């Protein structure tokens, strides 16, 4: 569905991406992990054509991002949630924010109403409908941003550091919603520096020094990273591997393994 081929990108201050090959299939949950400054934010913007590659190409559903006539089609199938909860607020109230995208799509009014109700309910923020966005907490704002994208029902949602500026409680909630979205068929591209966020993805890609350095399932990639000592891996994974236990990605799984190991003794 999304295809990046031999993509290069540089800012005046230097090269940021070199020779990137990446594909995302329909319904896949792809995690992209990289440090701050590794080019992951640039990558996010290249996918939807907010930026154009210096070399190589990016295609969404076979449409090139350089095809300016059809950029709208690309944006219809991809929605993006950015890092800063404040910077994406478009309407004054939550409702207006959601209506904005749907008006852009030209949907009939009853359809707009249905969708707004559906997704506000889904994210558990129905009571925020008429609240002024600026009065919400960072986590709530990000939930609204997610709703505003979900409401447009794109085939793929791209998330650029969606929870790094969000408090712990909302963080967990948002990550669960993302996983559920993927369950129901939406492809997800989840970009972050925090490995704990990516334990549920189908395929994990590591960006380092302008290139893709690792690719595979979370287990495979975390295993490689652990040996290379280049990047962080989720703590439960590191602990389980170092103790010689079956690898565990969550704390719950780790505790289960340790209990099993104890009773084994």
């Amino acid at each position: 569905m999304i295809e990046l081929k031999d993509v290069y990108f540089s800012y005046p201050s230097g090269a940021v991406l070199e020779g990137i090959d990446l594909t995302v299939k329909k319904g896949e949950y792809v995690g992209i992990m990289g440090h701050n400054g590794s080019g992951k934010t640039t990558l996010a913007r290249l996918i939807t054509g907010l930026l154009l590659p210096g070399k190589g190409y990016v295609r969404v559903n076979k449409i090139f991002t350089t095809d300016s006539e059809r950029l709208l089609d690309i944006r219809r199938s991809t929605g993006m949630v950015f890092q800063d909860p404040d910077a994406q607020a478009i309407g004054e109230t939550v409702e207006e924010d959601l209506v904005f995208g749907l008006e852009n799509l030209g949907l009939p009014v009853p359809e707009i109403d249905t969708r707004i109700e559906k997704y506000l309910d889904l994210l558990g923020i129905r009571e925020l409908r008429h609240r002024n966005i600026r009065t919400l907490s960072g986590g709530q704002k990000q939930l609204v941003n997610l709703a505003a994208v979900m409401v447009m029902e794109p085939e793929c949602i791209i998330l650029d550091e969606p929870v790094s500026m969000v408090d712990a409680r909302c963080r967990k909630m948002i990550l669960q919603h993302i996983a559920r979205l993927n369950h129901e068929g939406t492809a997800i591209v989840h970009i972050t520096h925090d490995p704990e966020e990516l334990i549920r993805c189908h395929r994990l890609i590591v960006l380092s020094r302008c290139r893709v350095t690792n690719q595979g399932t979370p287990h495979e990639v975390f295993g490689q990273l652990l040996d290379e000592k280049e990047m962080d891996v989720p703590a439960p994974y590191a602990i389980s591997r170092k103790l010689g236990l079956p690898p565990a990605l969550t704390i719950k799984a780790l505790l289960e393994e340790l209990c099993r190991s104890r009773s084994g003794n």
Partner: protein
Amino acid sequence: MIGIYSHGRSYMHLLDPRTKLALMVGMGLLIYSAQLPALTVLLALVLLLSRASGLPYTRLVQGLRPVLVFFLVIFLAHLLFTPGEPLIEGLVVPTVEGVTTGSVLVLRFILLILYTSIMTYSTSPSGLNYALTFFLRPFGTFGTDLAFMTGTAMTLIPGLFREKDTITKAQAARGYKPRGMKGFTALVVPLMNRSLKRVDELSDALESRCFHSKRRYYYYRQTLANRDYVAVGIYVVLAGVVLFVRFEARF
């Protein structure tokens, strides 16, 4: 200064935003052409409208605080420098005419601010957008784009003030309260820096949500109701009276 929108179902809230926008422009013209007696009537009217919109008087008046000094200066300037019948003896002579002219000018400003506050308090930015789009539609895509730009700019203005506060604090934290040109740069450069970043991110978000020039604004469609006709009717009567009094006074 501009009363921030608050969701509600008051009489003013339920008026079509186009009516309100038109009335606001109309009131502006009326205020400008009215003299003292008419202005006091308009003042009474604004207090009534404030009630009708659910905007508490305290908040209404708060909008005037930042400009009070400005008003004082204008009033004093006119009080002391308008030629006419002197009130007291002295070097700089306040005159009766000065009191009148000064009061009229200050009152006009006050009324403009108060009416605008009520308008923005009872009209959502979406509504305002809708009204602007409606009136600018004859100008095609340019018109609707202009309406959108104005609406978005209004949403961004409070953010600018917040940034200014943060920046002044940050510079003060360096023990450093720069004055004059240097002070201006110390504020403006970071302000531009941060604002441009914010606006960049906002435009990315707009594009991602499929914003395009040819889009239509139809969800918040309004139909004119009886109350709109009534409101316009009242305005016409009021305008008639004010203008009649004004031109009657001439002859």
